[in-house]
């Protein structure tokens, strides 16, 4: 069960959300849904039903209109995730640059398989499709940051840095 009482944007985020809602033409406020879901994920980490219901209430739309959108797009996490979500590109051009071998190494380094979260809750490892960085691969993304030209050594350094 989710305790919905705790699901409220910080005043700063709420102001940003209100500003976003106001920027679309009158009656077209639902356009703010995808951007607001990004802000929600930034604060609440994942799309619990409580979070999605809260976003629906802000936009005065039916909760199902939020569920169907959150579940269609791949960036919204429908399950709890670790502190750092590694979104690793598995598509062709990155594979040509050794992406599969580096991914195997990353799984070993973290001691988890794709889709899993480390027992300390620090890392979740997800595979994603093309991140539009094909010439700079292999690559993954953690939140807004792109990590490119990856190799085993670089992966070790990134994980060790984020584990501190």
């Amino acid at each position, binding site marked *: 069960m989710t305790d919905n009482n705790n699901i409220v944007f910080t005043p700063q985020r709420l102001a940003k959300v209100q500003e976003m809602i106001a*920027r*679309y*033409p009158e009656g*077209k406020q*639902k*356009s*703010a*849904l*995808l*951007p607001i*879901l*990004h802000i929600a994920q930034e604060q609440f980490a994942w799309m619990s039903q409580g979070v999605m219901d809260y976003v629906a209430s802000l*936009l005065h739309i039916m909760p199902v*209109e939020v569920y*169907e*959108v959150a579940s*269609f*797009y*791949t*960036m*919204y996490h429908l399950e709890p995730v670790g502190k750092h979500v590694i*979104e690793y590109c*598995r*598509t*062709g*051009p990155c*594979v*040509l*640059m050794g992406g599969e071998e580096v991914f195997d190494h990353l799984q070993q380094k973290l001691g988890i398989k794709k889709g899993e979260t480390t027992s300390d809750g620090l890392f979740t490892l997800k595979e*994603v*499709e*093309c*991140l*539009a*960085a*094909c*010439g*700079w*691969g292999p690559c993954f*993304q953690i*939140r*807004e*940051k*792109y990590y490119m030209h990856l190799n085993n050594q670089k992966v070790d350094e990134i994980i060790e840095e984020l584990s501190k």
Partner: protein
Amino acid sequence: MSIKILTEHCNTPGIETFEVYRQKGGYAAVEKAVKKMTPDEVIEEVKKSGVRGRGGAGFPMGMKWSFLAKPEGVPRYLVCNADESEPGTFKDHYLMKTIPHLLIEGMIISSYALGANKSFIYVRGELMYVIHILEKAIEEAKAAGFLGKNILGSGYDLELIIQPGGGAYICGEETALLESLEGKRGNPRNKPPFPAVKGLYQSPTVVNNVESIATVSWIINNGGDAYAAVGVGKSTGTKLISASGHINKPGVYEIELGLSCDEFLNSDEYCGGVRTGHRLKAVVAGGSSVPIVPGELFLKNSNGEDRLMSYESLSDGGFVSGTMLGSGGFIAFDETACIVRNTWNFSRFYEHESCGQCSPCREGTGWMQKVLNRIEHGKGSMSDIDLLVDVAKKIEGNTICPLGDAAAWPVASAIRHFRDEFEWHIQHPLEATKAGAVYMGAVLV
């Protein structure tokens, strides 16, 4: 050095700031357009330039603009498609992060030409850091009077909104993008009506790719005829090519259309040749959706003539021996690449990205992925090859949007040109599934 229309100043330190961009002549085209030209005159220059949509379809941009319906009292919208997600393509990503004002300036002029007072740039959500760069550029442009109310005292108002996507390749299809921009799932719409008549919020809308919009400033500064003088035939101007795979210098290159494929691949100004010590096996010339061709058919057409980097030359020979320029996502494969594995990888991409609306695509992409998966993992049978061809044929042309075609073409072309490699996989399952094992019978360049 060939002419650089988009990337001339990309290596100038500080070019992402308004100040430096302005010093390099930026925003002069906005001044010229809103002060000295009527919207129709701007459209006329873009028409004369012959510039074609750079997102992949290659439809003439000026013509697209001229289709925009203009009923009295109904708002019109310009939406920039920055949902760059086609595997092999990362040019818009590069352009927006490097020289954001080039897109902002193009958006202002294009919006003025189309009579839009609220315009959108729909950026794939993964590029949130680029969204912040664009938002900063918009603030700077607004502070300098190039955006907002009464731009440069012309009486023209424009608000520019950056909209993040949520992670979905399908939203690069323009009607899916519009659905997404309205806060819905990215399901492509049936056409007609086309967006030019009923687009965003059921209002007349133009959707253009980042690179297309970015050409507009140069066209206004130099004239449509000057732009049309660059390039070859109906492939006017320059094109950004995203180069990846087994080459010495992956990256984004601006080429004059009509450059020879050989020079693009081998000259140090561009790809710097196939990875040193290796040989070329295959090329995807325009993003994962276009037909894959053997290296020799990328360099020369079936008559043995040199192939050029242009819409016409790359598609010479149709799907029998040609391919497409597409989005300019160039991927090179050397002899270490496994065509079966790559085809399976791409088919998994399309299965993942199919929106699920049309049965041939929803089911067909999954079937192709499963069959390719079993061939790749040593469990295929010879009849699987024709099964794949059959499924691809039944998807193609039978869906609302082009994702179905985009999923079918890589599979059909891989089998057309590399059938022996598929057969080898099926006949030698133990060998084919060994780590690093690759079919050695392919013709190399």
